[in-house]
C-alpha cells in the first residue's frame, strides 16, 4: 500500500494558484496552521478559501493570498472579530461571500454527495442572497410548492485539516470533543491533506480502540504530514489549548502599518521547526491549558 507521508512543503507543491481551498477547524480551534504557514512561505496566490475562519483566514488575508473568501464568520474566539480579516475586508482586498454557518456545511455536503445543490430555507429573506448574487431558488416539485434556496455545492480542489493521530496509510483520528466539519471538508475536496500531532505506522495496531474517532475513510486522505504543535496558535484538544498570548500579540499587530511584515519576520522567516522554537518550543505548546468556554 502507498505511503502517504508528505512534508508541509510537499503539500504546497501539489497546490496551484487560483485553487479553491477548504480549511477545517473552527475559529481558533483545530486549524491546520503548519500547512497554512507553509502556504504563507510559498508564492501560492489567488486562492478561494472556504472556512469557519480563524487565524488561518486572517493570516492568508494579511499575506494577500485570498482572492475570494467563502465564510460564515472569522473569529479568534477570545478576540471576537479576526482583526486581519477585518482590515482586509474593510480595504476591499478580497471578494466576500458571506454565508450562514449552517449553509456553509450544507454546500460542503452537496459537494460531498456529488449533487449540484441542496435545498434549504436558510438564507432566504436575508442578505445572504445579495452577498451571493449567483444563488438561485427552487420550487418544491411536490404539493407544497414551497420556494427554497438551492445552496450550490462548494467543491474544493483541496482541503486541509489537523488531526491528533495519523498513520502512513492515511488513517486519521481526531480526539477532541468536537470534530467540527473536518469530515465534510475532506468529502467535498478532490484531495485532502491532514497534518497530525503524531504519525505512526499503523493506527489499527496502535489505537484500534479509538476507531470511533476516525472521521473519514483513508480513501479521502491524499497525504499526511507529521506536525506536532501544528495547530498552534489555535487549540488542538485534548493535546493543548490555544495560545492567547500569541493571538493577542498577533491581533495587536493588525493596528500597525507594517504589522504583517513584523509578524512574518518574527515567526515565519524560518521553517516549522524554527517557528516552534520561536513560540517557546513544542513542550510549551503541548502544555498550553485548554480554554474554559
Amino acid at each position, binding site marked *: 500500500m502507498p505511503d502517504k507521508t508528505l512534508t508541509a512543503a510537499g503539500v504546497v507543491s501539489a497546490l496551484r494558484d487560483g485553487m479553491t481551498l477548504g480549511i477545517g477547524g*473552527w475559529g481558533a480551534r483545530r486549524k491546520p496552521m503548519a500547512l497554512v504557514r507553509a502556504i504563507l512561505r510559498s508564492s501560492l496566490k489567488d486562492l478561494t478559501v472556504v472556512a469557519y475562519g480563524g487565524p488561518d483566514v486572517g493570516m492568508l488575508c494579511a499575506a494577500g493570498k485570498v482572492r475570494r473568501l467563502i*465564510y*460564515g*464568520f*472569522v*473569529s479568534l474566539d477570545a478576540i*471576537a*472579530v479576526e482583526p486581519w*480579516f*477585518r482590515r482586509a*475586508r*474593510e480595504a*476591499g482586498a478580497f471578494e*466576500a461571500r*458571506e*454565508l*450562514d*454557518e*449552517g*449553509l456553509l*456545511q450544507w454546500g460542503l455536503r452537496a459537494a460531498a454527495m456529488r449533487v449540484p445543490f441542496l435545498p*434549504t*430555507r*436558510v*438564507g*432566504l*429573506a*436575508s*442578505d*445572504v442572497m*445579495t*452577498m451571493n448574487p449567483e444563488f438561485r*431558488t427552487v*420550487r418544491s416539485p411536490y404539493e407544497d*410548492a*414551497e*420556494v*427554497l434556496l438551492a445552496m450550490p455545492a462548494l467543491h474544493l480542489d483541496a482541503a486541509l485539516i489537523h488531526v491528533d493521530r495519523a498513520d502512513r496509510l492515511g488513517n486519521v483520528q481526531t480526539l477532541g*470533543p*468536537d*470534530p*467540527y*466539519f473536518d469530515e465534510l471538508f475532506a468529502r467535498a475536496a478532490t484531495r485532502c491533506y491532514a497534518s497530525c500531532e503524531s504519525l505512526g505506522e499503523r493506527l489499527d495496531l496502535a489505537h484500534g480502540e479509538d476507531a470511533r474517532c476516525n472521521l473519514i475513510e483513508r480513501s479521502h486522505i491524499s497525504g499526511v504530514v507529521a506536525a506536532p504543535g501544528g495547530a498552534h496558535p489555535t487549540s488542538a484538544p485534548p493535546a493543548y489549548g490555544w495560545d492567547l498570548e500569541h493571538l493577542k500579540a498577533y491581533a495587536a499587530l493588525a493596528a500597525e502599518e507594517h504589522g504583517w511584515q513584523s509578524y512574518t519576520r518574527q515567526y515565519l522567516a524560518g521553517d516549522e521547526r524554527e517557528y516552534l522554537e520561536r513560540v517557546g518550543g513544542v513542550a510549551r505548546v503541548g502544555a498550553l491549558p485548554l480554554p*474554559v*468556554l
Partner: protein
Amino acid sequence: MSAGFTLAELLIVAASEAWRGNGEVLASGIGIVPRLGASLAKLTHSPELLLTDGEALLVEEPVPLGERGEFRPRAAGYLPYARVFDCVWAGRRHAMITPVQIDRFGQTNLSAIGEHARPKVQMLGMRGLPGNSISHPNSMFVPSHSRRVFVAGEVDVVGGVGYNPRRWPPGASARHLDLRYIVTELCVMDFGGHDHAIRVRSLHPGVTLAAVEAATGFPLEAPTPLATTAAPTREQLEIIRRLDPHDLRASVLKGNPPGSPARSAAPSA
C-alpha cells in the same frame, strides 16, 4: 451579601422568562446575561430545557461562568456543531443573542456596518443568524438601548430575518419565523403589536416610556398601563450568584447600577 440587587441581575431574571414553557428545546443564551438567564430558567421554572457546557456536551446541571474550580461538567448527551445545525433546522432551540443592529421588523445584523460590498466596520459575519431566525424561536438581549442599535429604516446587513414582507420571495415559507422577546437595560419588549410590531411589555423600575421611545429609532407600541419588570426573588439571586461566582455580570452594564434606582433596592420575596 447585599440584600439589594443589581440591574444586571434583574435583566438575567427577565431574560430567563423567554424560555418559560418552551418545552424540551435547547436554550442557547450567548453572552453573560442570556447564558445566566437560560441557566436560571432551567433551575427554576423550566427544568426540561437542554443546555450545553459551552462546547460539545449537553448537561443537566448548568455550568457556572468562568474558571470552574472543582466543578466538572457531567455530560448527559453530546452536541457537536454538526448536531447543533440539525437541532436548529428541526426547530428545537430558542436562542438569545446580542445583535449589533435591530430594526422595526426584528431583522438583525451581526455582520457589518455600512455597505456590505465595502463595509465601514466589518464585524463577525452572518454567523448562524439567517438559519436561526428562519428555523426556531429567537430572542435578543441589548445592554445599551439606543438609536444606534434600534435603527430607523432597515439594519445595514440583514442576517437574522424578520417580519419584513419585502424581503421574502414569493412562495417562501415564514412559518417557523418566531421572534419572542427583546430584553434591554430599559425595558422588555416583544413582537405582539399590529403585524408583529415591536411592543413594550414592561418597563424596568424608574424608567419612563418616553425614555424608551427617545432611545429607539422607530415607533413602539405600548399598552396602558405598562407593567414594571419583576424584581428578582431571593431564591433567584442565590442561584444567579452560584452560577456566576466571579461576578462577570457586574461587567455587563457601565457602572453596574442597582436594579431599583428610585428606592432602596430589596428583593421582592
